[in-house]
């Protein structure tokens, strides 16, 4: 996926915009990601539901000659997680972010899935998928083995599926020093599923940027997140359900790190970054041990 920042100038008016464009072919049926047309529909629906987004300005038509693409407004702010959790610039807004994230998620989860070609995923489906990837890698990691077993035994009771953002974490949020979350970015992994999946991904320790003491994104508390969620009309979600999905989130990220290492080991990529990411599996393993020790 290409992302281009550009400035459009017309009749003396300058507009700061973002073009997202897929250079290659794409099959929405088989992909985990949504098409850019679906992403645009989602962003519009999220905006209507009251979630902060970078509004869609234009969805490319074939005659535009851009291929699959859309243009959004460019929202100013910071996306770097480390800065959001530590830069003094965000000191005043930081204590409000967790509650705000809860409210935003409740609004996203209120979107009607009708007409949106989204797939659904539940905990067991995700475990199957990531376990298959892990087995295929040939890695022998006892903590990952244990986490798969533990999560399979503890699947939470069924719950009404909602529209999930599915990559809602510190790093995909445009944060303004005065307003807080100014836009939720990167909608391409959106699917239908358990609301706790969205609430928990933000709490995975890998996205706290060194502020492990602040479980929500490195800036807030679980209670603030869940209160914000309920205030904005979200269902009552018990913390144990969030911790379940947080454990699954750490496991997923661990398997993804393994996959990125595999792409180096198999000769697919030569970048020095890929093998180094392989050494990030251990961060998810220490987190998984802590989560399993604490229980649900």
């Amino acid at each position, binding site marked *: 996926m290409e992302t281009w920042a550009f400035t459009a100038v017309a009749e003396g008016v300058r507009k700061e915009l973002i073009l997202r464009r897929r250079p290659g072919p794409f099959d929405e049926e088989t992909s985990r990601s949504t098409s850019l047309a679906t992403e645009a529909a989602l962003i519009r629906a999220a905006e209507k539901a009251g979630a902060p987004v970078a509004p869609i300005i234009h969805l490319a038509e074939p005659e535009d000659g851009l291929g699959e693409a859309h243009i959004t407004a460019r929202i100013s702010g910071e996306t770097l997680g480390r800065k959001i959790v530590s830069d003094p610039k965000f000191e005043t807004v930081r204590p409000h972010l967790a509650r705000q994230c809860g409210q935003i998620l409740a609004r996203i989860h209120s979107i009607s899935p009708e007409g949106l070609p989204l797939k659904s995923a539940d905990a067991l489906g995700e475990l199957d998928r990531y376990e298959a990837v892990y087995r295929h890698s040939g890695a*022998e990691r*006892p903590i990952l083995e244990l986490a798969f077993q*533990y999560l399979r035994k503890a699947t939470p009771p069924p719950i009404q599926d909602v529209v999930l953002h599915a990559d809602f974490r510190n790093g995909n949020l445009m944060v303004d020093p005065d307003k807080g979350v100014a836009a939720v970015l990167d909608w391409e992994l959106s699917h239908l599923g358990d609301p706790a999946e969205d609430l928990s991904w933000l709490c995975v320790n890998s996205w706290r940027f060194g502020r492990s003491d602040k479980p929500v994104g490195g800036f807030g508390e679980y209670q603030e997140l869940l209160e914000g969620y309920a205030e904005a009309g979200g269902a009552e979600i018990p913390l144990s359900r969030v911790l379940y999905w947080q454990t699954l989130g750490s496991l997923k990220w661990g398997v993804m790190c393994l996959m990125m290492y595999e792409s180096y080991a198999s000769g697919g990529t030569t970048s020095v970054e890929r093998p*180094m990411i392989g050494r990030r599996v*251990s961060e998810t393993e220490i987190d998984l*041990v802590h989560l399993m*020790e*604490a229980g649900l």
Partner: protein
Amino acid sequence: MIEHPKAEELVEAVSKWIDSVRPSLPPRDAFLARVAVNVLGVVQRELALGPAAEANAVRRLRDLLGQEGDFQALNAQLCEAIRSGEMGVETPGLLAALKANITEQIAIDQPNYVSVRPAT
């Protein structure tokens, strides 16, 4: 075998050199150079801490499984025991052994990574 320069010193020299040319590199290469310095940091720590960490891990796995063997054999055996359901979070000593092993591993991989047990 020679005593000097030690492997740690050779790695350190390369790491310092990369650091010295980093400011003159274009942004993408400067970023990758920083990653390369981090990679060499892992190598240095593995050279210094790896042998003791592995010996400790082998001792813990031996105690847990009641079997003899090298790290690879014991680790594979433990994975199989968990996969088959023979061992789980309730197995006495399992989480403690895994925690001690991963704590030594993270000291090599990412010594500054902070992980805390959630307060539930």
